Structure formats: C-alpha cells, structure tokens
C-alpha cells in the first residue's frame, strides 16, 4: 500500500463539467420506470400469490374439517359396531356352551336308550329262557308222570302175571323202562340247566 502523493496545483477558476443536455436524464428516468413496472408486477404477483394462498388455506381448512367429520362419524360407527360385536360374541359363547351341553345331553340320552335297549333285550332273552325252561319242565313232568303211570300199570300186570303172556309182560316192562329212562334223562338235563 502506498500513500497518495500530494500534488500541488495553481489556484485558478474552478470549471465544472455539466452533463450534456438530453443524454443522462432520460436514461435515468427510463430505468426508474422499468424498475417501477417491475416492482408493480412483483407487487401484483405477490398480491395474487397471497390471495391464492389465502384461498388454499381456507380450502385445506375445509378439507381438514370434512376429514375430521368423516373420522368422527366412522369412529362412532366403529364404537357402535364394537358394542354390537361384543354382544354378538357373548351370545355366540353362550350358544356354544348351550350347544356343548345339548350335545353332551344327547350323547347321554343315546347311551341311556342303548342301555335300556340292552336291558330290554336281555330281559326278553331271559323271559324266553324261562319260557323254554318252563316248557321243558312241563315236558319232563309229563314224561315222569307217564313213567309213573306206566310203572303202576306194569305193577298191576305183574300182580296178575298168570293172565298175561310172559313175553308181552317182558316187552312191556322194557318199554316202561325205556320211557322212564328218557324221562329221567330229560329231568337230569333240566336239573343241569337249572343249576347253571
């Protein structure tokens, strides 16, 4: 950096240089006009932008309000449906419990019916057995009675033996013995059956 060197001039009249008329002033005025126009346009744009932003803000506020309303409405629906769902779920649980109870009861009743059926069949078979035993006892009693009667008849024949052919008496005695053997055998079988 160097300091300016002082210089000396002779004193004399001062001459000012004036701008040439018709050249500097119009140029400055045109610049100001252009600047003014630009600023005016910018102002208009700014005002328009501000207006647009105002409208946009209002629209978004309305939009948000509508969404809030929709959300509120659906929230109320969800709450109502939740209550309804809880009620239906409780009913379903109760219905399932009733169904389980009913199926258990049906199974138990089916079992009771089957057991009664078994008892009925067993009773019927026992009655049939008793009937067969009774019939067999009747047959045995009849056979034993016939045996006894035949033996009495044989005794009568033997007491009057001279009146009959010995061969016929012997044959009759054998028939009586066979009849009594059959009756005794049937009685033995009956006794064995009864003792089981």
């Amino acid at each position, binding site marked *: 950096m160097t300091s300016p060197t002082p210089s000396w001039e002779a004193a004399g009249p001062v001459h000012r240089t004036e701008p040439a008329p018709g050249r500097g002033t119009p140029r400055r005025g045109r610049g100001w006009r252009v600047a003014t126009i630009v600023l005016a346009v910018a102002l208009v744009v700014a005002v328009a932008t501000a207006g647009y*932003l105002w409208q946009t803000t209002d629209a978004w506020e309305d939009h948000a309000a509508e969404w809030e309303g929709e959300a509120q409405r659906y929230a109320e629906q969800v709450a109502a449906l939740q209550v309804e769902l809880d009620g239906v779920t409780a009913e379903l649980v109760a219905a399932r419990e009733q169904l389980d109870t009913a199926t258990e009861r049906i199974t138990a009743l089916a079992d009771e019916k089957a057991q009664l*059926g078994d008892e009925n069949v067993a009773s019927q078979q026992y009655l049939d057995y008793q009937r067969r035993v009774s019939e067999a006892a009747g047959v045995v009693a009849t056979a034993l009675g016939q045996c006894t009667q035949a033996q009495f008849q044989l005794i009568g024949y033997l007491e009057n033996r001279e009146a009959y052919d010995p061969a016929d008496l012997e044959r009759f005695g054998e028939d009586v013995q066979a009849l009594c053997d059959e009756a005794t055998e049937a009685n033995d079988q009956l006794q064995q059956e009864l003792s089981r």
Partner: protein
Amino acid sequence: MRAPLRAGVVAAAVALAASCGTLPDMPPPVPADLVPTVAVPSLDPEESARLSPDGFDAVQRMAVRIRNVGCQGLSTGSGFALDATTLITNRHVVADSESLQVNTYDGRDIDVSAASTAALADLAVVRTEDELPSAPELAEADPEPGASVSVVGYPSGGALTVTAGEVIGTTTDPLNENLGEVLVTDAPVEPGSSGSAALDEAGRVIGVVYAKTTDGRSLVVPQSTLRELLEDTSAFTPLPAC
C-alpha cells in the same frame, strides 16, 4: 443501469415461475366412500370342525353302536359308516347273531337289511335300510409309526367315546384272524370298541379296531386290507343265522 434492470426483471420472472411450482395445490375432494375393502373372514379348522347340523362333528356322526342279539346271549360292538347305507365292523361283532340292531350317535335306530363277513380278516359289512348320518373317507395309505390316531366307538357298550394315541408299528396278527400285518396303536380301547374306526388327524379312516392286547395296546386292521377286501366281490359272504 439497463443491465441490472434487465437482470432484475429476469430474476422476478424466474422467482414468479419458481413460486408457482412451490405453491400448494388446492385440496382434493373428500371421498364419499371410505369403507376399506375387508377380506372375508375365514374360520380356522377348529371352528369349521364345529360346523354341523347338530353340533356333533363328522367323527362322532359316522360312528354306530351295534347290538348283536344272539341265540346264546347279547353282545355289543362298534362300527362306522362307509357310505350312506353301508357299515364296517368286525366279523366277531356280528357273528352268531339272531338279529343286529344299530344305533347312531344321537340314539336313532337304524334297520339292518343284510350282513356279510370276510373270511380272511376280522371284518364285516352291514347294509342298512335307513341312511346313515355321515361317512368318512378312507386314507390313501397306511400310517407310519408315530402318526396320530383317534378311535371313535362305544367301549364297554357305553357312551360314544373318542380316544387318542399314536401308531406304534405293525405286527403279525397274534389272533390269527387276519392275513398280513396289522397296526398296533396305544389308543385306549375296551371290549365293545371292536369295529371302531381308527382315524388319522384329517379324520380319514386308517383302519378298524378289532382287538386289545394284554398290555393295553389296540390292534387295528389296516385300511389297505379293508380296501383289498372291499374290491374283491367274493371276499364277503352272507352272515349265517345262528
């Protein structure tokens, strides 16, 4: 002075254009219908298994109780539906019978029209006049050891019961009632369980229970044997009356 003004105008124009791009748009209209598309809820398998006309599942609905009114007494066994009018049970369940009486899970009486037995396995086919409530499917293959098995029947002639266990393996029939091998499971069975269906996890028939071992295991005629005999028209002969 002209150049700065021109630059200012250009800058203003550029700023204006740029500001138009950054200005927020007007909001779209609120949709009239906001209900979202919801997938149709589906029931899980456990829930769908409960779906039936009366609350009984298919496993219970297919089981029947068989009362053998014999000439020498009374016995009971189990069976299961093969189709609408056909039952499968054991030969020894229906043997020496004067009449057969069939009851369903809900106590209904089913009239029997005919019965036939297999000579080569402890199996019998019973035809019914009335339709049976439900019929299962036969499994495609015999189960492997370790597979789950359920037995549904009437143990001791009592109430309808479902017991569970696993397939232990196979063995030759200790009772010499069946040709080929039979399945051994640890599913509990009792007298009266004979003829019960042994089912896999999907509810398909893997065999027919026919006996219980002294150590509490159950013996099952495998479904492959059942299939073979059902396909052989001469395998089953009419059941003679006692």
